[in-house]
């Protein structure tokens, strides 16, 4: 069975219509990848699973799956987290 496409929320659509940053208005996650060694994520909703090869982080409407080798959660607060290691893939589900 094919997965149903994600439907954008009201705030997300509003931010698109008004050309405003969605991470601030709609609280969407913001990912910042530095090379393949550091991933910084803002507006996360918590870690769902953790391992050295895969870390799953909840982004609210998304699930952010980080794959790589020797992954390590360097720092984490209620709003942002920092993952280090050799990042090979970041997928949004």
């Amino acid at each position, binding site marked *: 069975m094919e997965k149903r496409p994600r439907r954008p929320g009201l705030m997300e659509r509003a931010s698109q219509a008004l050309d405003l940053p969605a991470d601030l208005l709609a609280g969407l996650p913001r990912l910042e990848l530095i090379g393949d060694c550091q991933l910084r994520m803002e507006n996360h909703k*918590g*870690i*769902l*699973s*953790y*391992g*050295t090869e895969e870390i799953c982080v909840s982004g609210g409407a998304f699930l952010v799956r980080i794959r790589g080798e020797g992954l*390590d*959660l*360097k*720092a*984490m*607060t*209620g709003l942002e*987290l920092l993952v280090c290691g050799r990042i090979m893939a970041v997928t949004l589900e």
Partner: protein
Amino acid sequence: MPTVMNLLRGTVTVTARGLFPERLINLCAQQGITFWGLEWLEETAVRMTVRLACVKRLEPLAERVGCQLEWEERRGLPQFLSRFRRRYAFLLGLALSVTAVFFLSRFILVIQVEGCEETPPQVVLAELRRQGLRPGAYGPALDRNRIAQEALKTLDDLSWMGINLYGTRAVVQVRQAQPTPEIENDGGFYHIVAETDGIVLHLQPEQGDAAVEEGAVVARGDVLISGVVSVEPPRYSQAPVYYFTTHARGKVWARTWRTLNGEIPLSVTIKAEQREKKIRWALEVFGRHIPLGGQEDPDGHWQLREERHTLSLPGVGTLPAALVCRTWQRYGEQQGQVDLTAAQTLLENSLKKELERLIGEGGQVLSVHTAARAAGGLLNVTLTAECEEEIGQEILAPERDRPPAEVTLPQ
């Protein structure tokens, strides 16, 4: 830097076991509990490091998500200090040392005097010591204003004194008093006489009558400017000449010939150092001399050489404690001959300095001639100099010079 801060604040490694350890991680992030070193041990166990201060907040969170906490390793300064919780002697010593530092730092160790321009600082220190401000005194008990006022009463050269305490250091700031201007005494009956023999070159009477003329040969003690002033009556008048006395003032320059003599013995006693020597160590604390060794100072022909190693602290200065090494070197006495050339040069320089002192700042030496003669075990040096100098000297005039008919001039 973070590592150092973590060591100072203390860290603890904890393992959380439960069905969903990631929930605990999320809760920690939300509650602001800082963690690092996250290590997934197995599906239901995670190990992380948190600050020691966060331990109490972590326990209820673990209880909420159904995790069990296992404390593994505590590190840092709080953990190190907690080892001494039951070492009462150590704690007592620590408390005593802190108290001693707090209490002893209130005693004065160093006194610094600032602002002395003419008065030697030693004079100020001696007076302050007399008033109770000395190394070893208890600072808060000193009445600094009273000490400063009492010291100023004795030290006439100072106009102001302030004493400040900086821990173990007392800084005494002083200001020199302005010298009182000399009040010239215009009253009285005075003459200006010749200080030495000479030929008068120039006269400059300011008050009184000139008694000699330029070119006159004067001897020591001759009156140059007289304190007796004559008032001539008008021409063709029958009135007598009136006299009145005054305080003679003025300057008289003259050409003089000065002869100075000096002598020095040709043989002197020389100290010849011998091998024997004795070393005495002593400790000086707050001016007290404490010998280390207990032996008395030797009698006889011993020469003393003292080395002082004063204790000092950066930022504080010299402390009133010193290690003193006294070396007594035995010596014998023997007669030695003086080098004639060196002795003559020494005497000549000494006589020239004496000559400069005699002719004063305004005088000048025109020519100098020296002659040396060795006789009777002495080297005799004679210095003859031709000079130009001011020779006027103010003296109280004798009563016999007072004129019989004296008038008083209106002031």
